[in-house]
């Protein structure tokens, strides 16, 4: 193309582009301003007190709702509360929200249409802190997380998994031949750290000097990563693994089954002995009971703000063996340690329990 013609075309192109850009900018700002002007706060104020007395519940989680673990058990607790009380209704579920922006958006969407919002997981704590003050009439239940400060409409409910972890550590240490125990978790969040430190303390109750190693895969549901991590542990001599994973636990079972020598596996949250042939037992956490209790109280307006930790006394945490897997000595040891923990004869060490927050706190 001749140079003058090219220049002319360029001028035309630029003359057209600048108005196009301006129009695009104007459009974007107009779109932002042309809404119905019903802001989030306004919507929130409409969400409570429906005429039918139905209390609607929204549920949000970082993991998928059918993760065979933490989220699924929590959701089961909400459904149990709904089954027990006819006026409760689970209206919305938002799952798989992994980053903070998505979490905030999801929480806002749920808060705009529900009276109770259950935020299931530690990673949601800051998002709840941001959103809850904007919806003062909505009750937020934050599961398995504490944070620096809470609004008056937030209650954090948690399981003192450290108690379970101490029992697991004691039992695993007794049954282990190599005296090398492993703890495999997704993210290094406080709840997962509790499992590790609890196991360390439990293993220390035995005089054999068993060691505990920990590995974080970065994902509670990635089977491949879990299998690789478990295989790596086994290669270093670990013969007892606690799997603080959800769907990812399948990888641990596979690694255990394929190992040349016996590798015991301990589950958390629920007990599913059919999932693998080497499963010894589980540090059961009855999230269903915890969520049912808290959601029912929230619906009745009786749930206090602050933090509530559910422990051995209420049966929210408890170590259970798979049938036929408990040696008499191991069973006796588990019972003994449990009784000592309930009787405060064993005091959880540092990091075994989540630190008590500065605001209202209750141990149940």
């Amino acid at each position, binding site marked *: 193309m001749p140079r003058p013609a090219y220049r002319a075309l360029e001028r035309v192109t630029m003359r057209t582009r600048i108005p196009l850009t301006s129009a695009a900018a104007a459009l974007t700002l107009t779109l932002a301003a042309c809404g119905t002007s019903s802001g989030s706060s*306004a919507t929130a104020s409409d969400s409570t007190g429906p005429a039918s007395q139905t209390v609607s519940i929204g549920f949000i989680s970082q993991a998928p709702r059918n993760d065979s673990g933490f989220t699924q058990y929590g959701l089961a607790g909400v459904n149990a509360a709904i089954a027990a009380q006819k006026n409760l209704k689970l209206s919305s579920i938002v799952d798989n929200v992994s980053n903070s922006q998505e979490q905030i958006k999801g929480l806002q969407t749920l808060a705009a249409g529900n009276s109770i919002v259950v935020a299931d997981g530690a990673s949601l704590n800051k998002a709840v802190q941001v959103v809850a003050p904007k919806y003062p009439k909505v009750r937020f239940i934050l599961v398995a997380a504490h944070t620096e400060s809470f609004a008056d409409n937030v209650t954090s409910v948690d399981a003192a998994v450290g108690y379970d972890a101490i029992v697991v550590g004691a039992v695993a240490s007794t049954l282990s031949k190599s005296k090398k125990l492993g703890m495999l978790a997704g993210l290094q969040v406080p709840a997962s750290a509790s499992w590790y430190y609890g196991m360390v303390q439990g293993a220390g109750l035995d005089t054999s000097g068993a060691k505990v190693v920990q590995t974080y895969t*970065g994902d509670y549901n990635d089977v491949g990563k879990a299998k690789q991590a478990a295989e790596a542990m086994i290669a270093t001599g670990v013969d007892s693994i606690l799997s603080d994973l959800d769907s990812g636990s399948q990888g641990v079972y596979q690694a255990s089954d394929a190992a040349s020598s016996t590798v015991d596996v301990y589950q958390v949250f629920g007990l599913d002995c059919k999932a693998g042939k080497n499963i010894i037992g589980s540090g059961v956490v009855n999230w269903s009971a915890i969520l049912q209790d808290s959601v029912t109280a929230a619906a009745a307006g009786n749930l206090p703000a602050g933090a509530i930790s559910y422990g051995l006394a209420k049966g929210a945490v408890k170590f259970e063996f798979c049938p036929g897997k408990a040696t008499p000595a191991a069973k006796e040891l588990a019972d003994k340690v449990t009784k000592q923990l309930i009787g405060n004869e064993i005091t959880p060490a540092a990091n075994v329990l989540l630190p008590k927050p500065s605001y209202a706190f209750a141990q149940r």
Partner: protein
Amino acid sequence: MLMRQQLPRVLITAGVIVAAALIASLILLASGVAPAAAVSAFWEGTFGNSANAGTTLTQAVPLLLVALGWIVATRAGRLHVGYPGQVIAGGALATAIGLHCGGLPGPLAVLATALAGIAGGALWAGLTAWLWASRGVLEIISSLLLNLVAVQVAAWLVRGPLQGSASQDPQTDNFPLSTIWPSFPGVPGQTLSYDVVLLPICAVIVVLLLSRTVFGFGLRASGGNGEAARWSGIDPKRGGVAAIVISGGFAGLAGAALLFAGTAPWMSDGFEAGVGFNGIAVALLAGNSPIFAILTAIVFASLNVGGTALQATLDVPSSLAEVLQGAVIVLVLLAAVLAGRRRGRTPATQPAAATKSLALVGTEEV
């Protein structure tokens, strides 16, 4: 003339959007959700009120910034995919600076975080550029691998030096108020950040840079034919390095925008949220046009935000938005191949167009 030039791109973009809508409708029907109800919920969740519209537009900004980075790099003939890592590097450096800028006045603190973001992304991209220029390492390989390194570095940072003092969670403390990028006070929830003005400004800057400057001409010449550029006295290696570093700067700024312009003023695992790769798709859907990329960035942001609304209101699986984004990328690639074949049948106009379309380089002539 201009209309004739733009028409194919407009048709391709419209065709891709229509095809994606059809795919979405089929998925919705398969999920037992009426498409009309889904459209209503989607609109309500994205632009149905000021707060949601603000969220959508604010989320479009980082997508556009990454898209502009891609456009600059590809125009210089450098196909790298290190945007996720550069977003993370930019966000991490901005966080490190921002957490210590609480004592600065607001405008200075905001500027410091933005510049830190640009610097972080540019430095990370500089590694790719250096490996390519000095060692001949393919930039697409090195940048891809550096993404993995960046993810691990970020994971270490939020569990180590940047971890919040009051929490055991892998998150930083909240950023000081003075560092938060301001938002429009009239929008409820203050969801619309002022950084939305970056949409047109950055797009125009890239257009002007590439079309009205000697530097831009050098980049385009390097990307068009390196040998010819060299004979003309242009160093294509220098152009390539500059393009990669500039694209990293854009991605780094996107990282800073994600953290400081959003409603979540802290850094945690996964804050990048797929923006790095989605930004590439934004550019592809726009035919590598900086101006069209504004619209496609809003489309992609709508998919993200609307996906959450669809899930909350109609229980549509959250993966639908990701499926749609993937479908858009496949459709864009398909459209590029078809366009390349069409051009291949008319060799008198553009002999190398088919190859270029496949590589998705230089689709737009600025």
